């Protein structure tokens, strides 16, 4: 494993930890952006250029901005006085640690049988476009329908209260 991988992994995990641990909600959103950027770099490291740039466009460009908008619209920018953690935070922490223990154990147990192709796959955007328009055209249409329904649903859910007040 190269130094680049360790650097990107450290950046991603540090971003994720900061997004979960920081007290100020806006700082959490910014740390989340760092984690998303680290994951995009990791996709590029894995020779998945299209997925890497889609990650940058969708997550850093849209989801992170959406999260910041939601934080500012709900006036969550300042730190609450009565703590940021839930009442039963210890149970949540134990469950998360247990899940990590099981996942890590499973990965370490299967190290010997994991596949390791050494040839770099040469996948162009043309291949991805052909696959999307050929073999995966039905899932693509369903995702288009899902995105339309989700956006209309989000708008309706967010404007519901105002409608009732009229």
């Amino acid at each position, binding site marked *: 494993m190269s130094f680049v991988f360790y650097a990107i992994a450290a950046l991603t995990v540090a971003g994720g930890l900061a*997004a979960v641990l920081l007290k100020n909600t806006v700082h*959490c959103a910014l740390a989340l952006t760092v984690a998303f950027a680290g994951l995009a770099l990791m996709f590029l490291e894995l020779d*998945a250029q299209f997925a890497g740039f889609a990650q940058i466009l*969708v997550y850093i460009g849209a989801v992170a901005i959406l999260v910041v908008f939601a934080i500012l619209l709900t006036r969550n920018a300042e730190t609450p006085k009565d703590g940021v953690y839930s009442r039963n935070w210890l149970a949540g922490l134990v469950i998360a640690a247990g899940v990590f223990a099981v996942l890590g154990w499973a990965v370490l147990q299967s190290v010997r049988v994991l596949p390791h192709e050494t040839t770099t796959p040469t996948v162009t955007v043309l291949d991805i476009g052909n696959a999307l328009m050929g073999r995966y055209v039905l899932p693509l249409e369903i995702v288009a329908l899902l995105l339309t329904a989700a956006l209309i649903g*989000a708008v309706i859910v967010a404007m519901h209260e105002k409608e009732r007040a009229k």
Partner: protein
Amino acid sequence: MMGQATPLAAYLLVAALLFSIGLAGALTRRNAILVLIGIELMLNAANLNLIAFWRYGPHPELLTGMMFAIFSIAVAAAEAAVGLGLVISIHRHAHTTDLDAMNRMRG
């Protein structure tokens, strides 16, 4: 130890760590937006698994894992839009996003 192991195992371990961090965030924070941030981290860890298995699996030219990750990114974007819309709606209704304070279903 990672020296002789496949690089895939290292990626899987990073993804497992990221998933657990997201799960811990979703379970321990009391702000609804931060719970959504934790869920986003978990989805991203799953995407990393898909891409890593695509890269080191037997038939990368079939694009299966890559397509799965791309569709997963699209579904996650829809989830974020609906989730944050719900948070804004709840905030307008109850004037809080504290999940410990939201303990009844009637308005």
